[in-house]
């Protein structure tokens, strides 16, 4: 975080926000923000806190670091994301995913992430004719891009056959429909736009954001097959960024499961409702298609260290803008990008809009 930024040291960081979803269950440790500060030699004197929003915890850190800087509270803020998810008994890690939904009424039924998204996929297949092959295409695409990302957990191509023949986790979801359980950490620095050139010739600008939530328990979601809060967050993100949808060159979307990315194409109006499967069949979310979706390799290819994921998406967008990514996954001339995270039962959606200039 400090190695490739000039004129700034850990002691300059006034605000530190640490995105971590469940350190108390995955690593038996709370109060992780001071640990991060200690590791990095940061001594915050304006703001320090851990931010939890499950799979969007990293984006929560960015949003609060941004508000610290935008409000004038801090001149230099750091947003760091961390998650240590590997456990000796992986059933215990799955247990941690059952207290994300309402534990007493949904989690109690062993409703962790795979069953919830499996039922989402089943309904999408039932209502719109989406196929297993169309879902697998998301895994094939994102694993293809992750072969060109040295930070990715998965470095090998996944063929359609391999995806479809991988072990069934929770039908209709096979193993390659699911993102990995991953350890990871990443950090970014935020400063006021007018100060940015002090630190780098090639900063990236936050130009908009949107975030929305409807309900929590399954009964109170807006819909299972249409992510209404994502539509709301997207509208707000475009409004605050003062851009139109066709100006976006890169979309880093939250592909925790293959079905998620298909439903995101639809909610973001890349295609008509129910046509997410056809959209990828036609090659539209590849680089060179209608819009480059997850050229980083996505959560499917890179793994999903909960608190770190959003920070890693953000760093990749920055590297895309700077042309620091390998040729095969470089979106040339990209000027604007969105990063997206969903959390819980897809009842919360968080979006940031970034620009090269």
């Amino acid at each position, binding site marked *: 975080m400090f190695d490739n930024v000039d004129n700034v040291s850990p002691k300059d960081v006034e605000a530190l926000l640490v995105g971590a979803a469940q350190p108390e*269950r995955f690593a038996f440790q709370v109060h992780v923000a001071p640990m991060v500060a200690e590791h990095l030699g940061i001594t915050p004197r304006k703001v320090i806190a851990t931010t939890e929003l499950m799979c969007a915890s990293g984006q929560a850190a960015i949003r609060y670091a941004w508000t610290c800087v935008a409000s004038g509270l801090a001149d230099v803020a750091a947003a760091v994301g961390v998650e240590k998810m590997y456990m000796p*008994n*992986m*059933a*215990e890690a*799955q*247990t941690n*995913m*059952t207290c994300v939904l*309402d*534990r*007493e*009424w*949904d*989690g*109690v*039924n*062993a*409703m*962790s992430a*795979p*069953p919830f998204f*499996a*039922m*989402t996929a*089943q*309904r999408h297949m*039932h209502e719109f004719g989406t196929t297993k092959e169309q879902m697998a295409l998301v895994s094939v695409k994102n694993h293809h891009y992750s072969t060109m990302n040295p930070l990715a957990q998965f470095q090998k191509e996944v063929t359609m056959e391999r995806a479809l023949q991988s*072990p*069934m*986790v*929770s*039908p*209709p*979801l096979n*193993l390659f429909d699911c993102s990995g359980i991953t350890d990871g950490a990443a950090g970014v620095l935020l400063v006021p736009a007018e100060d940015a050139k002090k630190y780098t010739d090639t900063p990236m600008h936050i130009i908009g954001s949107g975030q929305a939530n409807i309900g929590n*328990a*399954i*009964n*109170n979601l807006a819909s*299972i097959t249409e992510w209404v809060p994502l539509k709301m967050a997207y509208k707000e993100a475009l409004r605050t960024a003062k851009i139109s949808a066709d100006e976006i060159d890169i979309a880093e979307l939250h592909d925790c499961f293959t079905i998620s990315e298909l439903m995101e194409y639809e909610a973001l109006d890349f295609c008509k409702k129910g046509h997410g499967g056809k959209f990828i069949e036609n090659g539209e979310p590849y680089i060179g298609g209608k819009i480059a979706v997850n050229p980083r390799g996505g959560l499917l290819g890179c793994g999903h260290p909960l608190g770190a994921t959003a920070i890693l998406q953000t760093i990749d967008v920055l590297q895309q803008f700077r042309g620091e990514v390998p040729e095969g996954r470089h979106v040339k001339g990209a000027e604007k990008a969105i990063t997206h995270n969903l959390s819980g039962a897809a009842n919360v959606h968080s979006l940031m809009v970034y620009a090269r200039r």
Partner: protein
Amino acid sequence: MGNVEFEKIKRPENIKLPYMLDFYPLEDEKNTQVSQFFTNLKKGRLTTTKCKECNKSLWPPRIVCPHCLSDKLEWIDLGTEGELYAFTETRLGAPLGFVEDAPFCIGMIRIGGLLISARVDGAKYDDLQIGEKVGLKIVELEDGRVFYRFRKIG
């Protein structure tokens, strides 16, 4: 290393299931203001609260209506038969405490105008269909607490 002492220590081999790994809600009046739900469930009745002011049925059971913030709620019966809206089967990745049950089915069930998640017993994934009727089933834990599931009846 003459001054260093090595000693093997022991930790308890069996620990009573800690609360943080107990999925089932605490049901008595000391722990929840919706203990009536569990009292009713013990008698075979699946119930929830309904708002007397705005008439909305609430799920999960509440003590204040989130629609109009009234606390004038009444208990209503949801019936004992629901319709399967969606379902899946946990084959891999079962949480600790449910590993021994796998594979098992989980569903979203339409009942009394609500959408409730629950385990679905008595069927494998391939035996079930969207839209089919499922019946209420009540399971009792070793300590007397109860919870609802559904079961294949067709």
